[in-house]
């Protein structure tokens, strides 16, 4: 890895200036974020690392319009979203942001296709058009033809792929992934990271991954380190060689199939 100075990107997707987030816990005031300045350009693959309590998830929640900063300004696609209503934030989350969570967060009573279709439903996409978009999203993560299954019929890795398909289905500008491999074994984790990397390269979707695993961070172009609510480091990740094979498996994890999960 090599520390670099950020070059000016053609479009800044995320611009955060002086972001603070304070929580009250009884009589104590907890400063989760203490003035974050962060800019992420369109098409970047950014890993945010830091120890527990460093403010990673708080930062991701603010990025994803799930939470509001106590102070500072946040522009997403040039739009100041600090003071938007719940309804407006919901619209932005639906159209511009895709979420991937550590626990997949699929709804067990819905089948895979219905899970993936949820953002389309909330986005007002007509029913007639949803099926094609769902199929396309499932195919993009290698789960074509599995829409009729239910989450409990899939392995952890497959469930996370469904979550990625759900995040992708509205063709968002950015995917925010919070410890996406945290519940997976190393093979499935590798596969998920490869999937995200491939999507980033193929579609130019900006991806921000939160992790405390340095191997995961190895898939990113850029690594932001947080500590105690502040950015400690912001650096470009230098790959050993920019070939496809090293890009998708920089740490030489076992190849897919060597340790297949049982469905």
């Amino acid at each position, binding site marked *: 890895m090599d520390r670099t100075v950020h070059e000016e990107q053609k479009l800044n997707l995320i611009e955060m200036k002086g972001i603070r987030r304070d929580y009250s816990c009884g009589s104590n005031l907890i400063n989760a974020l203490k003035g974050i300045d962060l800019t992420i350009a369109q098409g970047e693959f950014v890993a945010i690392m830091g120890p527990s309590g460093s403010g990673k998830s708080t930062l991701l929640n603010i990025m994803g319009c799930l*939470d509001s900063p106590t102070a500072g300004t946040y522009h997403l696609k040039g739009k100041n979203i600090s003071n938007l209503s719940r309804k407006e934030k*919901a619209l932005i989350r*639906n159209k511009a942001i895709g979420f991937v969570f550590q626990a997949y967060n699929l709804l067990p009573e819905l089948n895979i296709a219905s899970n993936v279709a949820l*953002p389309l439903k*909330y986005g007002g996409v007509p029913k007639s058009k949803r099926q094609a978009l769902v199929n396309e999203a499932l195919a993009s993560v290698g789960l074509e033809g599995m829409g009729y299954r239910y989450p409990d019929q899939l392995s952890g890795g497959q469930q996370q792929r469904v979550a990625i398909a759900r995040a992708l289905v509205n063709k968002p500008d950015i995917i925010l992934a919070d410890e996406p491999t945290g519940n997976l074994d190393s093979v499935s984790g590798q596969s998920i990271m490869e999937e995200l990397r491939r999507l980033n390269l193929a579609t130019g979707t900006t991806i921000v991954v939160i992790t405390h695993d340095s191997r995961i961070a190895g898939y990113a172009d850029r690594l932001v380190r947080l500590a105690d609510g502040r950015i400690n480091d912001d650096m470009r990740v230098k790959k050993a060689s920019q070939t496809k094979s090293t890009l998708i498996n920089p740490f030489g994890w076992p190849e897919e199939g060597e340790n297949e999960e049982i469905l």
Partner: protein
Amino acid sequence: MKRFYKWLLSIGIAFGVFCSLIVFTAGQTQWTMIRLKKEALESDKYKIINTDNHLAIYGMGLDFAKQIQSLLPEKVVSDVMAKGFGVAVSYEGEPLMVGQVVGTGSNMAEILEFQMIKGRYLSPRDIDGYEKVCVIKSNVYDLVRTRNATHIDLNGEPYEIIGVISGDEAIGEEDIFVPVTTLYKYIEKIDERSGLIYKIVLDRKGLSEEYIWSELGEKAGIKGMDIDRLKLLPYQYEEASLLNGNNAVKEFLMIFLLSLMVLAVAAFNIIHIATASIIDREREIGLRTAIGAKPGHIIRQIVCEILHCALNGGMGGIAAASIVNTLTNLGLGQFSLSFNAVSIAAGILLAAMTGLITSMLPAARAAMIDPAAALREE
């Protein structure tokens, strides 16, 4: 929503609808009575028998009554009222109630005291002809009105309904009037004729009680009859209860309030169950919000889910109330409820309204869930 909560909600609403329907149906019966009485009081046809001109001799067998009748002064018009007990009333094989059948004679005193609402009174021709016709009280009519009935079955034999008279407070008593001759004929079959004679009603047409008594006593003495056991009393009827509509209105209002209380308790429980289900689903709702559900989406979803449970529960409540109603009418006889299409419509409306109103608070709570907090902990 988890199946457990769906069941709990449906059962809660079913219970509320069931209780309310039972109370509502009783209220509906009560309301019908109020309406019929009001119609009776407002009608010009209402005829009140002058009790000053009527006397009754109580308790004797038929043969003795016939003898007494023959001894009465000529100006006294008498009528032997026979009363049958425990007669099963049904409509096309469907049991309605166990009612009282009164055999009515030529002066028809017991019918004429009540307002004719529909059709006609019995006539001497019916009595002379042993016709199988009947005049029913409004509480009996209430059981058959939705069936457009032209007849009811008494002990398995069809009797044409020729008239409906307004009922009184004593539901189930003296409900069906048939020609006394027809009743005798029936009683002869079962050999209980003498035991069922109830009273002789006398229309004395201005004659004094003392005069009737002396005439009767003299003739009876000549014939050697013992009439000491007889009592001559003013003929009583229930004009007071017929005219007193206020009590019925009060009873109806009490029933209505009771129904509201049952619903309020059910609604309170439903809100609690629905709120518990929302707390249990915070993560799911947080996720839905995270992926773009607006507050309106969440509210709509929760309302629809609760409404769905409410309608399911409502159907269950209606079915249970219908069964209990049928069993009640079959088993108790004297307590009859008019469960009909209005009851079913009221049940569905009640369930829908309960679901809609009780879902508001949980839905609003769900819409306010902070997605970041809901998704924070695994």
